[in-house]
């Protein structure tokens, strides 16, 4: 009975598979069917629509089906463009680890794949054009699955918009038939790819400003310079808030300025772009200022005819997503970029850097701040306003930027893509050539480079000369500051170290606050010897960062005593070293000498050593010398050694007379030591020989050129 049922089910499955496979053959001759997928943000949807326009221009009877995710950018944009739209389940890739997020991701993805299989078998497309993002993941996976099972005859294309692909796209790239790239340097990530550029919709073409102005749905007074600020289709909280914060600073110039603000479609529970912006305006501006806004500021969620807005703008402020940049480049406008940090491969920063290097853009980095216990990116309104005003003042510069901007775009992307899809070689010149490019450093590598340079150079160390690019340094600083508010202490610790080595002195107050922070750690950690939320290593590295930054402020002076009383010995030791480092400021001040003397009896020998050395730097009288002399019978030879060093230093500084009394006191030191440095005669001889040969080699090389190489070779034989 069971066997029979199984047999029937098996037969049914086979029949379905055969039927589907047969059906798939059918549309070959008739109208081509294309599935478009990709989304989440307009940056993924618009290229898909642009490619659709290209395909439609080639064969007008082509049928399209768009597969997306509900309540994302595609649900607005695609409907407006008039394509058929279906929804599947999917979610952003959280990284593989054992968490609830991963489980939910896998479940949603599986469901999405099942939905996609049904949609695909019913639609039976000839081509699938995916534009990346997690939205297209289930569609691609379903298509690949159907292909592997020999059910579907479908070719899958993936268009990658960014210079550095995300993890999902990298994975998908291995399975699809061809990856279409925007930037040549991305070739290193995909074996099977062609560089085609970024497809831009036909509607995005430069318009004459007068014509564009007439088409607008809102009036703009004559003779104004127009600034268009937007954060992509979803909107960017940083930009939205910054532009509102900048309004009070821009208002005085309202006779020559007009701000257009695209606040974005985002309306999730975490952030509702429109409400948040309105609320902020109400909070920040006085009623009369709000009254003045009418002929100065215009806000809309999303501009379907963005080309008009671009065309009338003098300056554009936006995120550096590949889509926005390419659209702006098509129109040819100067742009002020606020890249989003910490994306996969830092691709927004890379894009922004590419455009800046082309001379078409300027970059502002956002800062990371704590707000209501949460971590927030933040761009100061005043900074933004000043930057905007400065740029608008400099008309020749703007003119130059606009021209450079026009040259930034790779033209004919759509034609190239269509030729790749039809595989008719109409455009082949996009292929090949891997362009090497300087990648941004990861945090670990950056730290290694900087700390090595610091160890080598000491106080003459300069992070800018190590990083070689001031904008990169600004970004690294920003990234380091972002680490400070992470949850795991390891990240915060890394942030502290990086802030020190990049010499981000503006963050000193934050560091000092963390140093004095006495929020206790979890109970379990405290039982095992932990103390505070800002763990010992962080506090130690903060003090170390102060030394590296070499910046003495009244705040630093206020906080050093806290560090010298810290429950963790390494912090106390490092604080004593910091006192020695800033010795010039403390020399002769009694309270500091007293503090150090207290540390001489610390009980932890590491602290005692540092305190004794520091005392040598700042002590000026017999009191300090006596304290050092009292260490003559200390248990640890390093402590006795440090005391002697301190006394020597005081004599060198000329504050201690080398009297007979002193010599007698010094001779009371126990000089036996439990440690010694071995020296190995043969290793030293070997080293001397190597050095000798190197110096002689220099001589012989010079002689070689004089006498002729033959002779030297003969001599050697």
């Amino acid at each position, binding site marked *: 009975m069971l066997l029979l049922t199984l047999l029937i089910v098996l037969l049914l499955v086979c029949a379905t598979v055969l039927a589907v496979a047969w059906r798939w053959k059918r549309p070959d001759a008739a109208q081509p069917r294309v599935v478009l997928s990709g989304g989440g943000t307009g940056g993924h949807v618009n290229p898909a629509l642009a490619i659709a326009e290209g395909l439609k221009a080639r064969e007008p009877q082509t049928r399209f089906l768009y597969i997306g995710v509900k309540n994302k950018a595609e649900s607005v944009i695609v409907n407006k463009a008039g394509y058929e739209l279906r929804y599947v389940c999917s979610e952003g890739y959280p990284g593989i680890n054992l968490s609830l997020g991963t489980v939910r991701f896998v479940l949603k993805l599986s469901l999405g794949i099942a939905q996609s299989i049904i949609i695909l078998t019913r639609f039976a497309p000839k081509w699938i054009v995916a534009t990346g993002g997690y939205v297209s993941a289930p569609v691609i996976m379903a298509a690949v699955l159907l292909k592997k099972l020999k059910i579907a005859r479908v070719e899958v294309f993936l268009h990658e918009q960014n210079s550095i692909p995300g993890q999902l796209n990298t994975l998908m790239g291995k399975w699809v038939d061809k990856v279409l790239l925007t930037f040549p340097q991305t070739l290193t990530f995909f074996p099977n790819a062609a560089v085609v550029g970024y497809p831009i919709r036909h509607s995005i073409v430069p318009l004459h400003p007068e014509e564009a102005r007439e088409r607008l749905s809102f009036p703009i007074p004559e003779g104004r310079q127009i600034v268009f600020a937007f954060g992509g289709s979803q909107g960017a909280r940083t930009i939205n808030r910054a532009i509102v914060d900048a309004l009070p600073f821009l208002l005085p110039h309202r006779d020559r300025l007009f701000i257009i603000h695209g606040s974005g479609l985002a309306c999730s529970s975490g952030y509702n772009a429109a409400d948040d912006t309105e609320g902020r305006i109400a909070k920040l501006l006085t009623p009369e200022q709000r009254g003045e806004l009418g002929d100065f500021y215009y806000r809309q969620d999303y501009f379907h005819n963005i080309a008009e807005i671009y065309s009338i703008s003098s300056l554009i402020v936006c995120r550096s997503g590949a889509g926005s940049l390419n659209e702006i480049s098509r129109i040819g406008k100067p742009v002020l970029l606020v890249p989003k940090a910490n994306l996969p491969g830092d691709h927004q920063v890379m894009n922004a850097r590419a455009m800046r290097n082309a001379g078409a853009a300027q970059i502002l980095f956002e800062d990371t701040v704590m707000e209501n216990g949460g971590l927030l990116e933040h761009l100061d309104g005043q900074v933004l306003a000043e930057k905007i005003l400065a740029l608008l003042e400099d008309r020749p510069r703007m003119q130059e930027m606009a021209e450079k901007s026009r040259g930034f775009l790779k033209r004919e992307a759509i034609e190239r893509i269509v030729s790749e899809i039809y595989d008719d070689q109409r455009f082949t010149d996009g292929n090949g050539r891997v362009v090497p490019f300087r990648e941004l450093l990861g945090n670990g590598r950056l730290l290694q480079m900087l700390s090595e340079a610091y160890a080598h150079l000491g106080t003459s160390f300069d992070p800018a000369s190590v990083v070689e690019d001031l904008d990169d340094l600004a970004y690294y600083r920003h990234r380091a500051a972002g680490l400070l508010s992470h949850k795991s202490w390891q990240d915060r610790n890394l942030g502290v170290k990086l802030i020190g080595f990049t010499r981000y002195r503006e963050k000193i107050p934050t560091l000092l606050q963390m140093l004095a922070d006495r929020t206790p750690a979890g109970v379990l950690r405290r039982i095992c010897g*932990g103390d505070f939320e800002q763990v010992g290593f962080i506090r130690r590295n903060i003090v170390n960062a102060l030394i590296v930054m070499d910046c003495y402020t009244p705040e630093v002076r206020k906080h050093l005593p806290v560090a010298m009383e810290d429950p963790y010995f390494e912090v106390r030791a490092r604080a004593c070293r910091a006192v020695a480092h800033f010795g010039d400021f403390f020399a002769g001040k009694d309270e500091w000498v007293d503090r150090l003397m207290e540390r001489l009896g610390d009980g932890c020998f590491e602290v005692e050593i540092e305190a004794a050395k520091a005392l040598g730097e700042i002590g000026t009288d017999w009191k300090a010398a006596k304290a050092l002399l009292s260490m003559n019978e200390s248990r640890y030879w390093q402590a006795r050694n440090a005391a002697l060093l301190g006394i020597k230093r005081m004599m060198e500084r000329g504050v201690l007379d080398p009297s007979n009394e002193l010599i007698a006191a010094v001779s009371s030191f126990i000089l036996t030591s439990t440690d010694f*440095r071995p020296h190995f005669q043969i290793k030293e001889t070997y080293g001397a020989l190597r050095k000798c040969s190197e110096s002689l080699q220099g001589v012989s090389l010079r002689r070689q050129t004089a006498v002729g190489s033959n002779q030297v070779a003969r001599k050697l034989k």
Partner: protein
Amino acid sequence: MIYELCRFLVPYSVSLSFFRLVNYITFRAIMSALTAVIFIFIFSRPFILFVHRHCLLDQVRETGVASVFDKKGTPTMGGVLIIGAVLISMVIWGDWRNPFLLCAMAGMIWFGLLGLWDDLSKVRQKSGDKGLSERAKLLLQGFFSLLFAWVCVGHFAPLGSALATKVYVPFYKFPLGDIGPLLYGSFIFLFVVFVSNAVNITDGLDGLAITPSIFVVAVLGVFAYVEGNRIYSAYLHFAFLRGAGELMIFGAAFVGAGLGFLWYNAYPAQIFMGDTGSLAIGGTMAVMCVLLKQEFLFPLLGGLFIAEALSSQIQDKIGVKWIGRRIFFRAPLHHNLQHKGIAETKVVIRLWIVSGILALISLATLKLR
């Protein structure tokens, strides 16, 4: 080999009855120790030259202790010598039908090969950190331990099934109880893995690992002799383990090899034992303890190794990785002492003294029961 030959010759002629000496365990033990020492004396120089010529030199990890840097380029993998000496000595003097001996040899060789692999990959990658990965190492150690645990509690238990899963503690003459094969097996598993790694961590200064191991194995050899002897075991209230005496011969060979190795390894070292040696020694000690039912004596007997391993683990896993501070100045123990300003030679000798005292106390548990 010689053992078998002699046993074979004795009945044939009165003039050959001299060879009956091999029936005495003490005689064979002394001979095997001598054989091992002589083997090492003969072969270490050629071995050091061989290692040097093939550039199998130690790749020092940067630990921040000044004198370590002077040691870069010292030939490593001296463990091969130790294992070779014990192996040859046992081939000559051992009774290869004895299950105790087989287990101990298997432990030594398996862990030795594992260490050899690790050493070679470190040399090949020219880095002290990029040896065999921690996980692979643990996996391979675990594999042997599992097998060994299975042998110990299963049908082939060298101890006999009556004793196999009983737990003995020092200072108490009766078994504490029978905890069943599963629990006891998993205990053996953890024990072997822990001990072998403990020796690996201890091996950081010239001569630091080898001398305490000699003490430990010597004491275990004495226990083996007592437990394998019907009269003494009855007198000292040990369970009689038939054939355990063979472990004394093994232990003696090890002590001989260790002394020979110390000859070259003493400060300043001409050769390091490398992971080959430290893992092999750890494996050997662990297996011997389990076979002689002295697992709970080990924390006392090998207290030094335990302290080294624990200090290292506490510092790393709890301190640096979790609560975010150093708990000791440095870890493991010997680096902490060095950091406090005690010279390497002094640290090594002090720790020898400590381990010698621990060995004496452990020996006292023979009678104090």
